[in-house]
């Protein structure tokens, strides 16, 4: 392959020469691709969740263990969850958002279950589906208990396909 000062060629591994024009084109395309990626990344970053301290989305302390009797369901409104204490003394923080289409599920004390007003899904106190259309149990928030004080991290909800004992936290 002849080379002139204007048309430099580079020998690739396969032996096919790449003209300077082609190399520049590739670089342009790569740069363009990077710019596109950066913009996409920026857009995504801008739309990421923005959270405030002490409100829903942060770690919230809800009080001492002994404030919550066994077999009770307590609504924590600004945390958007129910602190459930089961018969055996174990705790669950149950997110109030219905797993069907997102309505807020009120606790019905007389029936002893959560009943969604929107499409009538029903859930047991530990969040299990008693009646569809909800496809899975209510979500949970992680609980930590230190020195008898309960803290709930509302920043990450735990989705679960089934409810089981390992999810219950004991003081």
């Amino acid at each position, binding site marked *: 392959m002849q080379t002139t000062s204007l048309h430099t060629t580079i020998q690739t591994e396969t032996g096919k020469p790449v003209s300077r024009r082609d190399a520049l084109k590739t670089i342009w395309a790569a740069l363009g691709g990077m710019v596109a990626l950066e913009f996409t990344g920026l857009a995504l970053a801008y739309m990421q*969740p923005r959270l405030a301290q002490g409100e829903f989305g942060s770690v919230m302390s809800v009080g001492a263990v002994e404030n919550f009797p066994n077999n009770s369901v307590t609504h924590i409104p600004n945390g958007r969850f129910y602190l459930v204490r089961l018969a055996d003394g174990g705790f669950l923080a149950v997110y109030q958002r219905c797993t069907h*289409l*997102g*309505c*807020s599920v009120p606790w019905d004390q007389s029936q002893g279950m959560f009943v969604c007003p929107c499409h009538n899904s029903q859930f047991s106190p530990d969040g299990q589906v008693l009646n569809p*259309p909800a496809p899975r149990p209510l979500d949970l928030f992680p609980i930590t208990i230190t020195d008898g004080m309960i803290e709930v991290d509302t920043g990450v909800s735990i989705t679960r396909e089934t409810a089981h004992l390992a999810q219950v936290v004991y003081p």
Partner: protein
Amino acid sequence: MSEQDQIVDTPAQTFLGRIWQALGPTGLPSDDRGRMRMVVDNLVLHLHPTKVPTRTLSWTYTWGLGGLTSLLAVILVLTGIFLQMNYTPSPSQAYLDILSLRTNTWFGDLLRNLHHWSANLLVVTAFLHLLRVFFTGGHRAPRATNWIVGVLMLLLVLAANFTGYLLPWDQLAYWAITVGTSIINYVPIVGGFLNRLLLGGPEVGAPTLLNFYSLHISFIPVTMVMLMSLHFWRVRKDGGLTVPRRAKESEPPKIERVTTIPHLVRRELVFAVAWIAILLAWSMLVPAPLEGIANPDLSPNPAKAPWYFLGLQELLLHFHPLVAAVIIPGLALGALLLLPFYDIQISSVGVYFRSLRGRFLSLLALGTALLITPAWVLLDEYLLDWSAWLASWPSLISNGLVPLAVVVLGLVALDELVKRGLRATQEERILFIFVFLVTALVVLTAIGIFFRGPGMSLYWPWDIPTTHLSL
């Protein structure tokens, strides 16, 4: 040559006269050359050709639907600018701003009503415009590109409406957007991520309002204007509108043309003025809905998505979410976008419903769908219980793929009947299925709007308890 000279005016004698002259052509041209010249020279008018086929001027061909859709877009931009001046996108302020707009701002309520009703009408007219284009074969070559641009604009219209829906921050807005965005959660793998991204958090809140506001007032309208320009330009590039033809005319007629001024422009003006009058009267008489301020702890019963998504929400009541929210809409959108590439018969372009038999088949499809869709909804509500019958299978199969297969087989059977029994051609069969599916969508939407009450149970419209509407 002499006509041309008339256009290039000699400079006016006076100062004001020269300013007046600079603003544009002075006086209306008196002959056809001058009229055509005026179309070419004017920024707005040049969207039109200088002459148009007489036949395309017929009201009963386009129904003025594209024009009405454009008019509504303009009204929305204008009223939107004023609304924006009286609005703060934050949960503590938004609702109060709307209240104050209604009571403390001059014509604020009228402005809001006008924006609201134009936006809702826009969804309807864009959809009807799509139907008219399809029924006259306007999507076929060479207009495929413009059809795709059209479908994209329809999606944008829905996005504009949906993002605007949240802004009043009342109970209606909050829960419609909660339920509407929750549907996204059912998209496999990326659904949860997309939903969080759109909401800017785990549920509808301050970041959601800001996200929606920004999209509503910048990204969506700007994209819309660009696509609209592309759309109008393509109409001209593709040789103007399709020319209407009677079903019995075998040869495309010899095309007679008249000048755009005054024939088309006059019609457009009359049409626009009439519609502005209708919209104004409507907006003075019927207030846009506004409920109590959003309360994230209290879901109303029932909680419904915005009306144009209620067909989708109705599907969710009958199929596994993956089928209802992803597979069916995905297939439908794909079929719609690709329509110009499998429905390609050019010889019937311009004939409403393809042929006389096409007309009959469309009516047949309409009637069949009007019977079958409500019947299916009732059956599924009270008799069919796929998940119980096929209890040993995962619900995606028992309550999703199995009923979907039944529906698809039903459609194939209908198609075979039409093909064998009525000797329908390929394009007539596509027409039949299209009309059937569109009717089904409209029926499902109507059921979602009028027949679903508390707990999403079926009710007669007059029996639905109204307690959930209270403030």
